[in-house]
């Protein structure tokens, strides 16, 4: 009987071809829209996370205690062989040691608050997207030299030019102020006002010397080949930190709370829109199935008279909705894949609409946005459309069985 009912339901779906096609189009386009928007967000977030972790704390970061939250510059550590051992783990692309020292920069004309950041020039050049843009003659030449790469805004405010000297002053570990003469080698523009106005990159050993603690670092930023590898790499890093009880590894969501929260908030507001779209589609579905049921009241009455139980009629109406849902899910996913393909390959160029650089959650938002495939989510959404369609048919199905056969057969 099931097969027969299924066939009857399928033919009923196509009884009013135009109405079914319009409903299917609305449902499929909604699935396409939601899948495309989700994948675009995934792409944008992935790009932002990638930019963020490369210029910031890495996919995973090793700190002393709660440095991620407190930024207490006393919480330094020595990397010993940790850097090489973490770098050797499968899935790890680079490990960048960094030392952060808040202080003051002074030119002959102006002074400004800065964050003196000690880095390994060779590693950082590979990792940091902003340093990649610099020419060989603009990059730090050694780990302990006096070269400095500074933010564009800071350069302007200190009224400096590349090649000119300036002095940085930080508090040494002994509590005394320590100053150092540096020379502007290169200038970076990240698009983030705070960073462009305070960044001073120097060789890590030069920074450690100013602090008065040779080889000290605040952070080991672990850059992964793929962001999703964090699940496998994280426990391995934890294991490597076993002999170093003061050290802990934190994921980027903890190290860069602002970015994580901005993404969460943005995606939450998108989900509200997704729910509204699906709700509208469900109402459309209720309308279609209800119309189809009301038009066939007499037929339902005849079927009841012939001995069909309420269960048979409810099953029939719900199967019709199920079939519409399955077709919409399949066709919608096909369209959603097409849209995602376009958004991934071509993307959307926002340069005509927004400023060259827009900051979002503490990272720069690229003006050409591209989608990333999230097949699992697309599949989940498609699977959700099916029970949603069946749910939309519950009221019409109840309507179909509530009418008495005699009443129904009186209808024309």
């Amino acid at each position: 009987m099931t097969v027969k009912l299924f066939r009857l339901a399928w033919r009923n779906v196509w009884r009013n071809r135009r109405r079914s096609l319009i409903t299917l189009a609305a449902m499929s386009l909604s699935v396409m829209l939601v899948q495309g928007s989700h994948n675009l967000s995934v792409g944008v977030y992935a790009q932002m996370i990638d930019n963020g972790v490369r210029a910031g704390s890495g996919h995973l970061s090793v700190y002393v205690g709660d440095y991620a939250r407190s930024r207490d510059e006393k919480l330094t550590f020595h990397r010993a062989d940790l850097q090489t051992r973490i770098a050797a783990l499968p899935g790890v692309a680079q490990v960048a040691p960094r030392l952060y020292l808040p202080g003051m920069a002074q030119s002959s004309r102006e002074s400004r608050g800065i964050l003196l950041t000690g880095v390994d020039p060779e590693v950082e050049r590979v990792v940091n997207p902003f340093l990649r843009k610099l020419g060989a003659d603009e990059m730090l030449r050694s780990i302990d030299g006096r070269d400095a790469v500074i933010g564009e805004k800071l350069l302007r405010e200190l009224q400096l030019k590349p090649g000119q000297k300036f002095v940085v002053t930080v508090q040494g570990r002994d509590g005394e102020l320590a100053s150092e003469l540096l020379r502007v080698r290169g200038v970076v523009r990240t698009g983030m006002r705070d960073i462009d106005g305070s960044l001073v990159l120097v060789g890590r050993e030069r920074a450690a010397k100013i602090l008065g603690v040779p080889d000290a670092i605040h952070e080991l930023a672990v850059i992964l080949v793929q962001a999703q590898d964090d699940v496998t790499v994280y426990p391995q890093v934890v294991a490597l930190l076993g002999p170093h009880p003061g050290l802990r590894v934190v994921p980027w969501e903890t190290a860069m709370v602002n970015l994580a929260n901005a993404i969460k908030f943005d995606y939450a507001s998108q989900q509200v829109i997704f729910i509204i779209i699906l709700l509208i589609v469900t109402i459309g579905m209720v309308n279609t199935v209800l119309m189809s049921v009301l038009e066939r009241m007499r037929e339902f009455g005849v079927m009841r008279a012939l001995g069909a139980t309420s269960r048979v009629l409810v099953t029939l109406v719900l199967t019709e909705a199920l079939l519409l849902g399955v077709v919409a899910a399949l066709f919608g996913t096909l369209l959603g894949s097409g849209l995602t393909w376009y958004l991934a390959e071509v993307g959307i160029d926002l340069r005509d609409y927004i400023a060259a650089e827009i900051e979002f959650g503490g990272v720069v938002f690229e003006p050409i946005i591209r989608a990333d495939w999230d097949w699992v989510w697309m599949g989940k959404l498609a699977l959700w459309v099916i029970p949603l369609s069946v749910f939309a048919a519950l009221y019409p199905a109840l309507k179909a069985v509530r009418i008495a056969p005699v009443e129904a057969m009186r209808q024309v």
Partner: protein
Amino acid sequence: MPLVQLVNINKTYQLGNQQIHAVHDFSLSIDRGDFIALAGPSGSGKTTILNLIGCLDKPSSGRIEINGVDVAQRSARQLSDFRLRELGFIFQSYNLIPVLTALENAEFTLMLQGVPKAERRSRVTDLFRQLGIAGLEERRPNDLSGGQQQRVAIARAMAANPQVILADEPTANLDSHTAIELLDLMRRLNAEQGITFIFSSHDQQVIFRARRVVRLKDGSLQSDSLESAE
């Protein structure tokens, strides 16, 4: 024991503030193998009595027994099952399911009973041959004439081997030639297979072909007589 027994049946409807007495103190016994016409003008209560016998409606008072079962005591689900197994229906406007083929329409009650496909096919194909509509199995109702559709409806009613076939004005939408042909066919099935037919009509030409005619007027029994069309 009679196959169908109606005892002191009353049926009233509420229409706004008015109470309509559709059937008034009506009693009738129908034996197995009867070929009986309920005759009377429109509004005389023919359809109401057919609906009551068909368990599609419940009497306001009185008792209905079919094949020894007091149908008033049955739940809606039990009545569905009773209709499915014991009764066959033929409607004035055929009421075939438009998206099903003639064969699938005739199989419908068998499908509801869960009869296997091979058995359904053989039973319905045989019926189509008996009813003179062999070769039309794959046609949709829209592609059939009124007479052909009604024959498919008879096949549907007969497929499940019911005790009684109830036909409400089965020839009302047919031309007189086809109507008489159909009545003769029903009469033949009654004679050959012993199926009990109860049908309503106000067409004298049709009523004349019944073996027993129950005449109704204003919801009451006017006469109950044996005619002789043989």
